[in-house]
């Protein structure tokens, strides 16, 4: 097993596209925070990016098989860290998501755990070695993902918890779940949900309002309805070509809420229009396609699983975030990969990409 691979194999194409997206992100964050008190977020994002890129290079040198090996340990530590957050985490706006490490550095375990989960699921399904999935296997997979999901849900952080789900789905799908099993699962879920509804364990009215406000923003005019409304206005009024860099009236006038994270795509669309938005979609498409290509060329099953896990998470986040911005899905606090401001998201993404690079670089290794 070769430990080193040639630089040629490093996926420069992928890196270019990722960097391009990152640059756009920095510029957009800067524009979105121009008029607000969040000055310097653009610069901070650059800092995160640099760290992320550095980590990406670092991790690409570690043979991913080693990571797969320690996956069980990592999983355990991950669970512990989630518990730690629940106990000693800093409470911000009613949620405990971070552990303060002093010196203004915050550590958000839920993002790391996502990465670990990808590795763990990959290892688990690889361990099943392609045999048909039994119900026991499926149950174990659910548990493996479900436990951290619940821990994160309790923080509460619905958005991040949701992003664990695609990992499970990708694993099940690639692991060979049969259509009949899928049908039974869906039915079971429907029955459970219906049962919960009947027994009165349904979402609170404000939560219901949040969920339905993407259909009718006036359901929740002050909260998520307002956010959706403003997002639609920002995106729609951008038209074909947009209003120009830093010229987005909704963004600059502080009408678009949190324009540098959740609604960064809306800010971008206001400034660069349909054309700009399609450009970003194109970039994402190319990145995802490239990733899937890497999965196809991966030398072994765990490699492929890991890459597809990454693809699933990234695709899920893209669809949920942009879907929210254009009013197709409810508001969830899920960041747009590579675009939204935020260290944790950047770090996860670049680490994940680093592992993918890793896998790609070793595809010819036997």
């Amino acid at each position, binding site marked *: 097993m070769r430990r080193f691979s040639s630089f040629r194999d490093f996926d420069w194409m992928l890196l270019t596209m990722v960097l391009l997206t990152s640059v756009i992100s920095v510029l957009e964050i800067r524009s979105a925070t121009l008029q607000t008190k969040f000055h310097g977020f653009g610069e901070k994002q650059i800092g995160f990016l640099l760290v992320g890129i550095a980590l990406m290079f670092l991790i690409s040198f570690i043979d991913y098989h080693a990571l797969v090996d320690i996956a069980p340990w990592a999983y355990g530590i991950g669970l512990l860290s989630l518990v730690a957050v629940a106990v000693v985490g800093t409470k911000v706006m009613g949620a405990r998501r971070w552990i303060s490490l002093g010196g203004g550095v915050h550590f958000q375990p839920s993002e790391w755990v996502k990465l670990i989960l990808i590795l763990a699921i990959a290892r688990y399904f690889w361990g099943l070695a392609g045999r048909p999935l039994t119900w026991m296997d499926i149950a174990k997979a659910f548990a493996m993902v479900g436990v951290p999901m619940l821990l994160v849900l309790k923080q509460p952080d619905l958005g991040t918890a949701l992003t664990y789900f695609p990992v499970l789905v990708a694993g099940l799908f690639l692991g060979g779940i049969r259509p009949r099993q899928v049908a039974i699962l869906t039915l079971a879920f429907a029955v459970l949900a219906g049962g919960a509804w009947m027994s009165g364990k349904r979402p609170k009215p404000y939560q219901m309002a949040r969920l339905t406000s993407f259909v009718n923003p006036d359901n929740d005019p002050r909260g998520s309805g307002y956010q959706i409304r403003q997002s639609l206005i920002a995106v729609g009024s951008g038209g074909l070509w947009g209003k120009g860099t830093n010229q987005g009236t909704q963004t600059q*006038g502080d009408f678009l809420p949190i324009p540098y994270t959740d609604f960064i795509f809306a800010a971008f*669309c206001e400034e660069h229009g349909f054309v700009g938005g399609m450009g970003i979609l194109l970039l994402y498409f190319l990145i995802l396609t490239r990733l899937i290509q890497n999965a196809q060329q991966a030398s072994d099953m765990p490699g492929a699983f890991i890459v597809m896990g990454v693809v699933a998470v990234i695709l899920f986040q*893209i669809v949920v975030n942009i*879907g929210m911005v*254009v009013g197709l899905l409810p508001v969830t606090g899920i960041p747009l990969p590579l675009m939204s401001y935020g260290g944790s998201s950047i770090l996860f993404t670049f680490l994940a990409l680093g592992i993918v690079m890793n896998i790609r670089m070793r595809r010819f290794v036997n």
Partner: protein
Amino acid sequence: MSTAPHPEWHLARDEKVSAAKLHAIQYLVVILLAVLAAGMWRLQILGADGYRVLADANRIRKLPVLAPRGKIFDREGRILVDNYPSVSCFLLREQAKDLQADIPLIARGLDLPVEQIQTSIRRYASSPKYEWIPLKQDITQDEQAFIEAHRNELPELETQDDQRRLYPRDGFAAHLIGYVGEVSEEDLNSSKFAFYEPGDVVGKSGVEETYDAILRGTDGSRDVIVNSHGKEVGPLGQQLAIPGHDLRLTVDLDLQRVAEQAMEGKNGALVAMDPHTGEILAMVSRPTFDPNQFAVRLTKSYWSQIVNDPNHPLMNKTIQAQYAPGSTFKIIMSLAGLEESVAQDMHVMCNGGATFYGHFFACDHHHGMVDIDHAIPWSCDTYYYTLAERLGIDTIAKYATEVGLSQKTGIDLPDEATGIMPSTAWKMKTQHDKWYAGETISVGIGQGPVTATPIQLARALSGIASGGVLKRPHVVFPDELPTDMASAIAATYPGSGDRTVPITPDNWETITDGMAQTMLPGGFDTGAAVRLEGIDFAGKTGTAQLVNHSIGGNNLLTGNARANAWFVGMAPRRNPDIVVAVLVEHGGWGATASAPLAAQVINAFVTKQRKSEGNLLQVAAPKPQQPKPVPAAPVSTGTGE
């Protein structure tokens, strides 16, 4: 989660993930991204225009800048109507967190009925949400304090400095000036108000109504850009408010004061006019109302009080009260009789009345032998009954309409009445019956179906005294108006206008001397008690019975059946400089009730005239031999030749 055993490791490593599944995921990616693209298309291509409007609505505020209304002055530039600063309260719908829930609190704090607020909101339902809704004007200090104190709970309330109308107190010149109010729903639907918006203030009567287009300015607006917190972040543009034009009326404040005082406590009307030009010098109608009550929101109680008052305070009686003119009509009869060459040689024996067509028509006195020169000052009914019989109704009607009866004069005030001048044609048209000769008799003394307004009589009699030159009465100087406005006004208020009636100079002298004689002492002269020392005061009294004259002259009854007291006076007798018509409803004798009031006004006018001439003379010529004008000298040209 067990560690895979190494042999399986090596084995499993060779297995790959199904290529088909990877392809499937690839397709999934394409489909999902396409759905997102479709979502973007829906917003940015299909809905772009709509969202642009919303984006602007978010951030643009249109703040109204109200234009002050033009002030109104008297002919010497003394202010009659002014504006005063006041504060109005507006509602900004989109700032409200929960508008419906806030309404009770707003209603309490601003002392408004809840339904009124609801109605206002409904009225603006179709306008953009960022438009302000006027809630209450002229708010008190307490209400202002309430708004300030509730800035946080009620961010939807906003105040604006404003200009409101300040009218003279106690209804001074109220009918002439008129009042303003908010344009009503029905008005907005008519073409006349095509350019008005809800909440606009318009003139509702008097000069405020006629000249509303001049007096009202054009509201401006200040467009500002705000951020999501409603804070102004930049100007967008502004349209300056164009203040309304000031208006100078023809009335003389001094004469108006005298007239208002003279008419105090009476019901009726007084109008003073300059016959040379038709300029109105004073205009009073009683009872009056307080237009300041209309300028702020009118209370229901005040409105019902004046609407239900049987003496009609809202009516401008100088131009709207139509009554039988009584003996003032005899001047017109004299004109007809002289121009038809009937009266010159007519001598009538008055024995307290005469019989015509089987009825006895009474006269107040036994005048003995009466000719035209005495008929006027004595106001002998018998003479005029006879004259009426000789002329016939249609001849009388001819002269009466020539001097403006039964038509509007064309004064530039709204709702002028026409009065009635009967004739055979008139009777056929209105009552589908023929005119009976017997009906003509009472018309001869201004009774029967004939009616006139004070302004008509003032114009008619002074026109006759001016040699037949009649002018259109007006309250604003036409050459101070833009040309198209002046002609528009003339078209809106049609009437007999300026005209000349041919009068033979001899007849003219006879009539005017007769009217002058009325005011001099001696014999049966009816106006003698009111003569003015040193002024060539001429006029005609009138005592218009409300019941059939044949009951008896001296029995005037009392209360609401009492006769209307008329007087039309002028000075000097020929080409007069001023004519004053006074009507005191149920005042009894014209000589006692109305004539003295007119005399006060004429006296004031002449005194003022002489004072100004006196000043001019003293300044111009320091020579002591220059004779100072003596109070006994007749005013202006005296004989008017």
